[in-house]
């Protein structure tokens, strides 16, 4: 799947409150599809559809364990986000350090 196609798919993956709720639930650890559907107000097929969208956006992984499907957060996505912000803050703080030190110099 091309990167562009993937971003189109994931663009609104967490824009939907039901999907956001499912995603939040999974932050405490893996859950079976049955478990996720149990306390949702939407129908089981609807839950499956939401899971499919999250999976395609690389937000979750779904694995078969015997007769059950288990969902969990896709670490790849979090790692990508983390690396991105890690680099961002490095760059930002390096700029900030230079600026603050120049300000200090100009005080004296």
């Amino acid at each position, binding site marked *: 799947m091309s*990167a*562009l196609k*993937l*971003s189109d*798919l*994931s*663009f609104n*993956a*967490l*824009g939907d409150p039901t999907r956001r709720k499912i*995603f939040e639930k999974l*932050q405490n650890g893996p859950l079976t599809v049955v478990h996720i559907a149990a306390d949702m107000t939407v129908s089981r097929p609807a839950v499956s559809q939401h899971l499919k969208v999250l999976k395609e*956006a*690389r*937000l979750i992984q779904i694995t078969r364990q015997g007769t059950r499907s288990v969902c969990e*957060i*896709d*670490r790849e*996505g*979090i*790692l*990508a*986000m*983390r*690396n*991105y*912000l*890690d*680099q*961002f*803050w*490095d*760059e*930002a*703080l*390096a*700029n*900030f*350090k*230079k*600026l*603050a*030190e120049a*300000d*200090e110099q100009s*005080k004296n």
Partner: protein
Amino acid sequence: METIKLTTIKKEVLVNASQETAFNAFTGKIDLWWPRTHHVGKCPMIELVLEQKQNGRWFSKHEDGSEVNVGYLLAWDPYQALVLAWQIDGNFQYVPELITEVKVNFIAESPTLTRVILEHHDLQKLMGGSKVIESMDQGWGMIINLYKQVADEA
């Protein structure tokens, strides 16, 4: 714990400046140190604004006159600390109901040396994922080199 490491970024930087100078530079001059390429407007950014007060707005101004929210100040404690609400998700969209916290502490090591500790929490909430993955493929090599230059000069 690995999960904590995975969803939190912690950075420390030692600044040769007083606590007050460091705090004022971070907040009052955010437009001057914020990497220019990082904004979520539809056209070039002319200014990044942080209102220096409790609940102060944090937004970018653009060439077409538009303003785009980034977040707001959750805590404002001059010159020791601040907490920013970062409300841009992984698809570079402002999401009002999304709050990730950026906590910044300014520790006076001496009258002219300040340790700045920045922690960005709950990264998993930002997970729009794919756009970020694409961006990483596109230009971080260049950014890292830029940072190295700045760091070497500092």
